[in-house]
């Protein structure tokens, strides 16, 4: 089998791995070496599904002994099998990198023979890249569940990022769909990587030259929509992974049916909008100071598909709003729908030298279509409709135009009130 055939099979087999990022590492180049890390990551292309291509994302092999129901490479699936040699992966990586096609290598694999054998082949490949070919570009290595801890420690020396896939949001689903994997075989290596990273950071305090251990941290991915878990339990899981395992990213992957005959798996189109809402909620956890239990709770267990999670949260907590943009503190400004981290920072900087009004906000990057209902500027409310009105929910959805609503006879009561009267029921 020639390289082209292998590349076709093993890149198509890797496409369901969602992680694409090449950020978090500022690895330096060395004299006579090739490549370096770029802290914020670089996208090198975009495929027709709109996803970014940053790394050469391939499987080392798709010849799997496992039979996970959701996976295209499961052992009972009838499809061509192929395996690279370490040298082939190295040549592809080096030559793609020299032409600026890629930011580095993302190497994953099916389980060939046994986890240790597979992991060893993968670690050998990246060791060759780093030591023999002096490659300093980004390397993301997938950890095979059940692999020997010493192999994982070695992988951390050469990879920028390590990841162990959690695959499904609960142990029960894992048992059902991936009987050869279990939560233990996933969380153990995760913990090991976490400890490795912390240990190295500690050593770094006392010794000047300590080789980095997975400097871009670790990430994971889980499949959404293959099993019945609700969004609340997924967000709680992510929160736990961020807080307890210090993960950099949790990726969510809308389940794409890989078998039309499955009895236990849904055979519907991938729930892309749900995936999108989960990412939005994930951002709220990581950058906006939200807790999972604030975004959802026992009476709202799933994210509203028609509305972004921040707007939805704001509508469920109208007592907090409207916030005066010239007074509210930074943490609260971050919670206003339509205002992101950058705009919030600008607002806090700008109001030290001037009072801000409604027009200023627009120029500073706020999305007023959403923010208008939740703020006052110098005491004036620009929302037009009462905050506790059902019309606001409609107003926040994509196709709404306030002017049209004004022309219709829907809700004339509170149209010209400067500040909405908040009802006491909240």
């Amino acid at each position, binding site marked *: 089998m020639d390289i*082209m055939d292998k590349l076709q099979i093993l890149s198509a087999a890797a496409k369901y791995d969602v992680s694409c990022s090449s950020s978090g590492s500022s690895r330096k*180049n060395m004299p006579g070496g090739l490549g370096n890390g770029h802290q914020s990551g670089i996208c090198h292309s975009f495929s027709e*599904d709109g996803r*970014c291509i940053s790394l050469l994302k391939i499987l080392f092999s798709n010849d799997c002994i496992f039979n996970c129901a959701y996976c295209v490479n499961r052992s009972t699936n009838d499809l061509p099998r192929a395996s690279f040699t370490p040298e082939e992966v190295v040549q592809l990586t080096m030559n793609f990198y020299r032409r*600026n096609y890629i*930011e580095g290598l993302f190497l994953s694999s099916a389980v060939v023979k046994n986890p240790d054998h597979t992991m060893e082949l993968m670690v050998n490949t990246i060791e060759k890249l780093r030591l023999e070919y002096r490659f300093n570009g980004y390397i993301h290595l997938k950890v095979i569940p059940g692999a020997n801890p010493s192999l994982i420690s070695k992988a951390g020396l050469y990879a920028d990022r390590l990841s162990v896939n959690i695959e499904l949001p609960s142990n029960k689903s894992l048992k059902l769909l991936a009987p050869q994997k279990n939560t233990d075989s996933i969380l153990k290596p995760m913990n090991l990587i976490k400890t490795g990273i912390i240990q190295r950071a500690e050593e770094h305090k006392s010794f000047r030259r300590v080789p980095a251990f997975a400097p871009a941290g670790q990430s994971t991915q889980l499949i959404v929509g293959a099993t019945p878990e609700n969004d609340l339990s997924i967000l709680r899981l992510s929160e736990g992974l961020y807080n307890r395992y210090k993960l950099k990213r949790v990726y969510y992957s809308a389940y794409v049916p890989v078998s039309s005959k499955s009895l236990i798996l849904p055979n519907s189109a991938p729930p892309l909008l749900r995936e999108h809402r989960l990412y939005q909620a994930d951002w709220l956890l990581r950058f906006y100071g939200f807790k999972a239990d604030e975004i959802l709770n026992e009476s709202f267990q799933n994210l509203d598909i028609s509305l972004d999670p921040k707007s939805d949260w704001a509508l469920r907590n109208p007592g907090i709003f409207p916030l005066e943009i010239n007074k509210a503190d930074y943490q609260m400004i971050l919670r206003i729908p339509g205002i992101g981290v950058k705009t919030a920072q600008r607002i806090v900087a700008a109001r030290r*030298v001037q009072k801000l009004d409604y027009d200023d906000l627009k120029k500073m990057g706020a999305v007023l279509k959403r923010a208008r209902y939740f703020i006052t500027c110098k005491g004036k409310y620009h929302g037009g409709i009462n905050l506790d009105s059902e019309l606001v929910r409609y107003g926040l959805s994509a196709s709404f135009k306030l002017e049209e609503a004004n022309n219709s006879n829907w809700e004339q009561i509170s149209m010209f009130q400067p500040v909405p009267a908040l009802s006491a029921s909240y």
Partner: protein
Amino acid sequence: MIYIYDGSFNGLLTAVFEAYYRHEEPAEIRTVINHQINILDDTSYIATDTDKASRVYEAIVLKISEYCLQDIYYTYLSNFEDSGTLVYRYLKLGFSVGKKLNMYQAHESVIAVRNIVYKVMGERHRLLGLLRFSKLDCGVYYAPVSPDHNVLELLAPHFAERMGDQDWIIHDTKRKTAAVCKSGTWYMTDFDSNQYDMVKENEADYQAFWSSYYKNINITERSNINLQKRNMPVRYWKYLTEKQVN
């Protein structure tokens, strides 16, 4: 009063210097190339003076900030006709408020410059990824680009650091200039190529590998061409290996 400068960064800084010391308030600062002569305009040609320019340069760093210097340099590199005037107004505010300039996020001059800086920085970052080298017969790696803004010298240091062990040329086909890297050091030069169309036999292999990879990594069930085009505007496809019809 309209100031006309030669189009160099030093020329622009000299114009700012003159405005200050002549106690004038130029309505516009334009380059020779952009200026359309109109006999009704009151114009003054500013002769570039490196001494005056470096005084302005140092004053910016000392009295305002390094960030401000970067902002005006990026604005200068943009293709906006009126960038000189915007730089002047931005610096005028900067010299009056000093280190507090970064707080004036709602000020007209700051917003105007920021919007341009974002465009230039954005294009630079985009091209860090979208640039495509091909290996020529002589062993040199060659990448053509035609950016909206004059970002070549913002790209070059990145590739010099990253690929210092290979000789390369990044060619701005629109402005007919190039950044050339030889043995790890790079320089800017005027450049017009026709002789670099010949690429090595071997090159076809890697281009085919890459195009094939590009096709195979796509999940057809998730097709979203609008998202693809938003992230990677079609005007950049011209030189993308994976977007050439084979």
